[in-house]
């Protein structure tokens, strides 16, 4: 959900709303007057500088041959050598393909499922029933990925897993859902849908609740069936929310699902499961190729940055407010 922010977050707004009286006093006095506010801010600022900005500086290691005992400065410069290696490595195409496929599955399966679920919930008139169902479908969102993947391991496992036990009884034999690479993507999508599809309806339901009920009354006076009302009143009313959430999800897709995929990837399904961040972890943390993996990480961050800005620009094109 971390993509939706009000436009109040725009940093330029303060310049407009600064009181004219305050502007007359010299800056030093105004700063001294608010010394307590700066003091309050200090721990937070230090956090952002140390744990967010110093690592950005540390990205320089992607252009060096970083050796921990030498430190960042003393390590030898190698220019774009790590990037050249990454782009010519066969893994590059594999990572790109896996990431794009999972993102596409997310957009064509997960996203429509949340909308349909929200529309169906919206058609329920008895609020007790509606609230009960909502209470049920929000639960999985709050489980950790370890628990969700753990539950899938137990239920879909080949030894004692209930799904395979049923398949066996029906005479289909066992299916190796967890290590067979053909089942990797369906499992990922199924987990995503089970964990977050219910929760994904929250924003849509809020938007649906805001639709003017006069529109429905007028439509039904004109003899529109519920299906036509859905098509001509409901969907146009929430179109802007759908567009902006779709675009933002697209913009974030490189970071999407890392915690989940990290748990699901193993030696047998790496070919279809490895994405940029799992590759960075394996090559960097486990094999100790710090500079090379930092270069991969930098490439990923840069692409993600362009995607988010592009998505925001697109959202504005569609007449939405945009986010940043």
């Amino acid at each position, binding site marked *: *959900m*971390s993509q*939706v*922010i*009000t436009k*109040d*977050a725009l*940093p330029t707004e*303060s310049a407009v709303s*600064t009181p004219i009286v*305050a502007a007359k006093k010299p800056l030093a006095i*105004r700063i001294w007057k608010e010394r*307590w*506010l700066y003091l*309050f*801010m200090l*721990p*937070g600022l230090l956090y*952002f500088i140390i*744990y967010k900005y*110093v*690592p*950005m*500086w*540390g*990205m320089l290691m992607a252009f060096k041959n970083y050796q921990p005992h030498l430190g960042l400065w003393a390590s030898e410069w190698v220019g774009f050598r790590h990037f050249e290696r990454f782009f010519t490595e066969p893994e590059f195409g594999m990572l790109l393909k896996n990431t794009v496929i999972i993102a596409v599955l997310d957009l064509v399966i997960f996203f429509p499922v949340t909308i349909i679920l929200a529309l169906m*919930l919206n058609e*329920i008139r008895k609020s007790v*029933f509606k609230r*009960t*169902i909502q*209470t049920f*479908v*929000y639960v*999985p969102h*709050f*489980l*950790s990925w*370890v*628990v969700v993947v*753990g539950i899938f391991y*137990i*239920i879909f496992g080949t030894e004692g897993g*209930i799904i395979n*036990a049923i398949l066996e009884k029906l005479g289909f034999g066992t299916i190796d859902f967890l290590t067979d690479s053909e089942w990797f993507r369906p499992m990922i999508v199924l987990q995503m849908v089970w964990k977050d599809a219910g929760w994904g309806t*929250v*924003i849509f339901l809020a938007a649906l609740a*805001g639709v003017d009920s006069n529109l429905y009354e007028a439509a039904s006076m004109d003899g529109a069936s*519920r299906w036509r009302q859905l098509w001509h009143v409901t969907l146009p009313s929430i179109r802007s929310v759908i567009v902006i959430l779709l675009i933002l999800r697209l913009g974030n897709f490189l970071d999407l699902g890392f915690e989940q995929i990290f*748990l699901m990837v193993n030696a047998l399904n790496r070919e279809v499961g490895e994405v940029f961040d799992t590759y*960075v*972890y394996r090559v*960097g*943390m486990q094999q100790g190729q710090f500079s090379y993996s*930092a270069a991969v*990480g930098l490439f990923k*961050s840069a692409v993600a940055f362009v995607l*988010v800005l592009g998505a925001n620009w697109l959202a504005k094109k569609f007449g939405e407010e945009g*986010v*940043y």
Partner: protein
Amino acid sequence: MIESRSLGSKIFDIFNHTFLLLVGLIALLPFVYIVVTSFSATSDLIPTKFTTEAYQYIFSADTFTKSLLVSVFVTLVGTFVQLALSCLMAYSLSHTHLPGRSFFLMMVLITMLFSGGMIPTYFVVQQTGLLNSLWALIIPNAISAFYLIILKNFFQSIPGELKESAKIDGAHELTVLFRIVLPLSLPALAAFGLFYAVGIWNQYFNAILYISDPALYPVQVILRQLIILSSGAIGDSSSIETIPYHGQSIQMAVIVVATLPIIILYPFLQKHFAKGVLLGSVKG
């Protein structure tokens, strides 16, 4: 006119209710199945005999109880630290006349767009001496930029007259924050406290990245080892063979215990989270 429904409409309603009921059951059943089977003595499809052996076993294993303590400690301390830092910073940034405010806001926003990535961050955590310490699970993610901005907007929505009149009466900035702003924001603070607590309780990757001492593993990491890596027993590796029943019920018991705090908090979560999401949404 509106009341009269066509046959098609009625059929749709029946279908809709049935389908949603099914969806609700699918959302719950896997977890219910895990809970029920964790108390079952046999590994049959339909549980027959009630037993708490699996729970007795995991609580007798030192590794597991320790990891629970780690998780509880990190969640309590972490939630407090994160909430305190976020509140202080959000409060300062909620003053629109503060010199340099837009610069600081920009600083926060940039971190939402661009990050140094896993490897450089790892070295910063290492150099600040947090590796293999429980603080590594708290400090490197101390403030969520997204929650900070929402909290700032929330503080900004508190009428300025309240703060100004207190200041005219000579109240200190600390007094304004603790006696006026925070008490007025209690519902929002409860919501953000829950956000942070669930986030910390559920995190596992930071622990894998920054902690190599098994005595400091939080429960999620133990769970991952136990089920996904299937690294065998949680206690002594020799003791697993003396366990008479299916090892799966141990895995299930661990899942249940690791999820219990979330289940207990769930009624509050549902109420606050939905509001929290809308608090920050575009036009709810």
